[in-house]
């Protein structure tokens, strides 16, 4: 079987396993969940807590509100809206991470001084950060273009996305063997040439796993940012809007969650595809 066929089979297989696990647990689990020492360790399995997969899927086809657009369209549009924040946040975060990695590789003192802060940056809880970033929003503008709420979400996505790239790329840029660096030096290659001809190519095995992490982080950041700031239009907002209706329409919130998950998969897929393309070009070269 060829590579593509295996990929399709893998994706389908994962989906089938997921559905079987969901429905399987729903079939055998206690409808009231399993409670150990007063703490619920396994979730409830009734239709309000775990709607059937087909209920959720059919909910996609029904209108969001009476007479409104079908849910699949609403969720898709919301995902595309969030995708803008994710994409810009991912690219900007990647560039910032790359720049920081180069800087830290170039100047040892920067690495020593900056790296702890880079790590520290990820321990700041988003719940504390989001209102602050939303607060800046009203004061900033890009040139004459006023700040938009989705840009605050983008900043959060970027804030989460830069970290894996910075750390991963630093490892990658430091990965060439001393003998290779010495060879470059013997050619009288400057720092820039060493970076472009040696360090960057050598760092690709580190770059792509880092980018995958960054892509996932950007999606999480955007969705959480939207929830936190209530930014209208995105899939994070849909999650919170639909969760309010869980009393009467429990399947609805799952459609938004599936949308958010699909968005994450799509972005990860783009990274995987670019890795594949870069790999193929390098093999040809």
């Amino acid at each position, binding site marked *: 079987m060829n590579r593509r066929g295996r990929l399709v089979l893998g994706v389908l297989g994962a989906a089938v396993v997921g559905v079987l696990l969901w429905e399987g647990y729903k079939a055998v689990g206690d409808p009231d969940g399993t409670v150990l020492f007063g703490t619920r360790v396994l979730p*409830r399995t009734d239709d*309000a*807590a775990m709607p059937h997969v087909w209920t959720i899927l059919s909910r996609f086809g029904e209108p*969001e*509100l*009476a007479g409104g657009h079908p849910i699949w369209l609403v969720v898709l549009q919301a995902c595309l809206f969030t995708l803008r924040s994710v994409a810009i946040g991912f690219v900007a975060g990647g560039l910032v991470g790359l720049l920081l990695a180069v*800087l830290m590789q*170039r*100047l040892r003192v920067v690495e020593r001084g900056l790296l702890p802060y880079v790590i520290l940056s990820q321990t700041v809880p988003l*719940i504390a950060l*989001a*209102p602050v970033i*939303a*607060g800046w*929003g*009203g*004061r*900033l*503008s*890009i*040139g004459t273009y*006023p*700040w938009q709420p989705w840009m605050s979400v983008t900043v959060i996505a970027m804030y989460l996305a830069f970290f894996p790239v910075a750390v991963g790329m630093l490892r990658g840029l430091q990965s060439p063997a001393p003998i290779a660096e010495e060879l470059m030096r013997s050619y009288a290659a400057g*720092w820039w040439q060493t970076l472009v001809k040696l360090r960057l190519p050598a760092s690709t095995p580190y770059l792509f796993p880092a980018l995958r992490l960054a892509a996932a982080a950007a999606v999480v950041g955007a969705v959480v940012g939207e*929830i*936190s*700031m*209530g*930014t*209208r239009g995105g899939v994070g907002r*849909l999650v*919170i*809007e*639909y*969760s*309010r*209706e*869980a*009393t*009467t*329409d*429990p399947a609805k919130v799952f459609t938004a969650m599936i949308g958010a998950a699909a968005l994450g998969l799509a972005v990860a897929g783009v990274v995987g595809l670019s890795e594949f393309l870069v790999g193929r070009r390098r093999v040809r070269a």
Partner: protein
Amino acid sequence: MKRTRFALAVLALSTMVLTACGTADEPSTSTGTGGTKKVKLQLQWFVQGQFAGYIAAADQGFYQEQGLDVEILEGGVDIVPQTVLAQGQADFAIAWVPKALASREQGAEITNIGQIFQRSGTYQVSFASSNIKSPADLKGKKVGNWGFGNEFELFAAMTRAGLDPGKDVTLVQQQFDMQGLLRKDIDAAQAMSYNEYAQLLEAKDPATGQLYKPEAFTVLDWNNEGTAMLQDAVWANTSKLESDQSYQDTATKFLAASIKGWAYCRDNPEACRDLVVKRGSKLGASHQLWQVNEVNKLIWPSPAGAGMIDEAAWKATVDLSMTTKNADGQTVLTKAPEGLAYTNDYVQKALETLRSQNVDVNGSGFTPKTVTLTEGGA
């Protein structure tokens, strides 16, 4: 040498990036296009019937009549309206009085200029079969609450009934939905009359296959229990209110147009529902009509005029805020509010304007509608 040059280049680059994002910190007194004044209003939550009056004022042109161009900013999970106001990101904010007073005590310079909701909309709802007919009956029960300052009326009622909220009841953190009550994880759940209570009546009773009827539940209404606190009010920036003549004018105009919006929603609840739905609320139409109708009940009738801050109700809220302890033994306020915590100056002027336009600002003849909820509020 090379290193220094590199470091300099990085420095120059980062300066360039930073300066590219300029600040657009326009003073709120600037006039926009057409000679209208730009005003930002921060809501507590997403657009819904709770804010119908402001939406009506914006979409029916009442703000425009007053020369205002009002931008309505929606809330979010982590957006605290009074903080947004105190930081200067909005000109006015809608917030509950106890929560705003707590922010005030922590240094937010804000003033209540209009008490839109005259009554509290918070219920504690239980199944009728649980026999919770008074706060004292909560003893030994699982009592749901949202926390974050939304629970003080409940705690005040329990304290008044001689219960220790930390010991005599089991406190349960509530989610956004009412499944906790329906599945009996919670015996008595917090619910806003205009939102969560409606969600209960939009749900199907598995025993009958019909929607739950109001008789299925017992409601503790804090207005009747004597522990109600003031809720949605219009808050303004204190220092601007004290020094900025143009901001004072804006405050009066903003209140006049907002109250006119609420009067419009009192007389045209269906039209207001449509305006809210048009603004992109994700809640269904019957749910929104219920919400507008219930909110009307919290505002009308207003014997002194809509938006007037009643001294007795204010004092009751402040007293409860200083004496009620939450589960951690904390009170909302440690001392009485200092400085200009509220003023009726602007709302009085606004009411005069409206009376001269023959707008009914008392609503003494107000009769609420009977709204039929459909499943899911569709």
